């Protein structure tokens, strides 16, 4: 009988990523309800020391595959390693982060483990001893409650949504052999973006601009405000399609679906496909000249005015607050 709530910890460049702690804390909560243990799979090269960090957030056992061929991340090496240890231990539930790496790895694991998965969940709970995963569908135009009739019951959890809770456990290290064959894929090159740039999918605060920014140069005021707030700069589809902003910054149904604590929409009218991608943000601010813009119906705070005057003024106010 499948037993235990497991996570796949995500690390990059020698450090665990924040989503790993979100996964561990969530797994702990569900494992306590089931009276079961939390296991974490940790793959990479020279990663064993990270096990102690996972233990702080409620992990009972850390299954470590330490192998130079697991660094940097490739789909086939990591999926091979994780599938092997999961098959040997038969956990009931397996969580990954719905990050770029987690989305890639989790989908491959669904194939290797012949199971089902709920992608990009915003809530998970136990109902009748089984996992019930809640996730936005149609980019958030509706939600689905997913149940899985195979093991492990897999879910990828949206970064930044699940709380991190400290809960020290043993974090016993269990080393395992990754069982890697000949590598089918390898990383030829890593192209780093500007240092310190925050991805919209991971940001706590997003300052986003649309057609109302009037051109690429308009984003300077958003960059300045975002810099002060430690925020990412997002963009609407109109702005990306016009070539003003990179594709990676697009928020909406054909871009990234985001759930930050604060979403500041500047010069974005609020097309349905954009609203779908950001409506699960905790607080939404809309700044737009057009009082009839649909974005105001979703906003907690709205300002009907010229964004080119409001945003710099807001930046000054924030400077004062943070001083």
């Amino acid at each position, binding site marked *: 009988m499948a037993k235990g709530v497991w996570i796949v910890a995500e690390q990059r460049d020698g450090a665990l990523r924040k989503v790993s702690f979100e996964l561990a804390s969530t797994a702990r909560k569900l494992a306590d309800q089931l009276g079961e243990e939390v296991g974490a799979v940790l793959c990479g090269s020279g990663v064993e020391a990270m096990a102690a960090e996972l233990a702080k957030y409620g992990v009972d056992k850390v299954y470590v595959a330490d192998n130079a061929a697991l660094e940097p991340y490739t789909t086939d090496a990591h999926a091979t390693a994780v599938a092997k240890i999961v098959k040997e231990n038969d956990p009931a539930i397996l969580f990954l982060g719905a990050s770029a790496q987690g989305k890639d790895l989790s*989908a491959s694991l669904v194939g290797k483990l012949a199971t089902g998965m709920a992608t990009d969940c915003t809530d998970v709970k136990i109902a009748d001893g089984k996992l019930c995963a809640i996730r936005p569908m149609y*980019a958030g135009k509706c939600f689905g409650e997913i149940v899985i009739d195979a093991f492990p019951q897999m879910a990828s959890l949206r970064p930044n949504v699940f709380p991190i809770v400290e809960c020290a456990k043993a974090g016993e290290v269990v080393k395992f052999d990754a069982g890697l064959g000949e590598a089918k*894929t390898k990383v030829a090159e890593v192209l780093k973006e500007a240092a310190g740039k925050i991805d919209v999918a991971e940001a706590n605060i997003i300052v986003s601009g649309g057609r109302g920014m009037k051109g690429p140069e308009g984003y300077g005021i958003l960059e300045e405000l975002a810099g002060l707030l430690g925020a990412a700069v997002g963009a609407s589809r109109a702005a990306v399609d016009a070539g003003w902003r990179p*594709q990676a910054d697009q928020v909406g149904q054909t871009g990234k679906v985001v759930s930050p604590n604060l979403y500041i929409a500047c010069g974005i009218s609020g097309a349905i496909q954009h609203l779908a991608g950001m409506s699960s943000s905790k607080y939404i601010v809309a700044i737009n000249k057009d009082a009839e813009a649909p974005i105001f119906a979703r906003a907690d705070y709205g300002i009907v005015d010229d964004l080119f005057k409001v945003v710099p003024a807001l930046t000054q106010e924030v400077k004062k607050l943070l001083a």
Partner: protein
Amino acid sequence: MNIVACVKQVPDTEAQIKVKGDGSGIEEGGIKWVMNPYDEFGVEEALKLKEKLGGEVTIISMGPARTMETIRTALAMGAEKGIQIDDPALYNADAYATAEALAAAIKGVPYDIIFCGQRAIDDDSAQVGSILAELLGIPQVTFATKLEIDGTAVKATRPIEGAAVVVATSLPCVITATKGLNEPRYASLPGIMKAKKKPVDIKKAADIGVTGASKSKVAKFTPPPARPPGKILCADDTPEGKAAELAKLLREEAKVI
């Protein structure tokens, strides 16, 4: 080169999605159906490869009768032939059952490379391409924004948070496409005329030897949680005054800055 592109028919991005009263699904009346935008990038890349290296493009789609329109759209863009998997047993297929059906259909087709969209914008599951690669036992690169093929060597670029990774692998493989890979073409009028005569094979689950059994299901659909009505800030009529009011609310009421 034998190229396969998998496509799905989905509601247009501007569609309002209404959940059925009993939570069993969504209301399909009045929806405009289109090719999944991420699959369009896959079809376009397939056509570009064919134009460069020769060969043919086969479109595979699973869905009810209306799905034929989407297959015809891809044929009008320039693909040679289509396969439609249409069986009520598969209408609620999850990602695994979908990939199983696609893999079964693809086994009857020669292929060097298979394109899928990184996700369909209806169920947003982002799994089918990866599962398909696993079931066929071939490598995969997901979320590709750039693709280079030289002989059997493949290089594909995929964005990760704050960086991009160039992944090297070899044919045959599955590539899942995302925005940035290319600009999909529109079907030309002669293309649309020609597409009507191109062959499309319609298959049932039994024809490809699958049962359609899913591993997961949506037990219940619900509308998104309602947002409480917001407020328009107007304590002061100047941009500066409104900005000051906003900063204060974000700090003291929302506590987010």
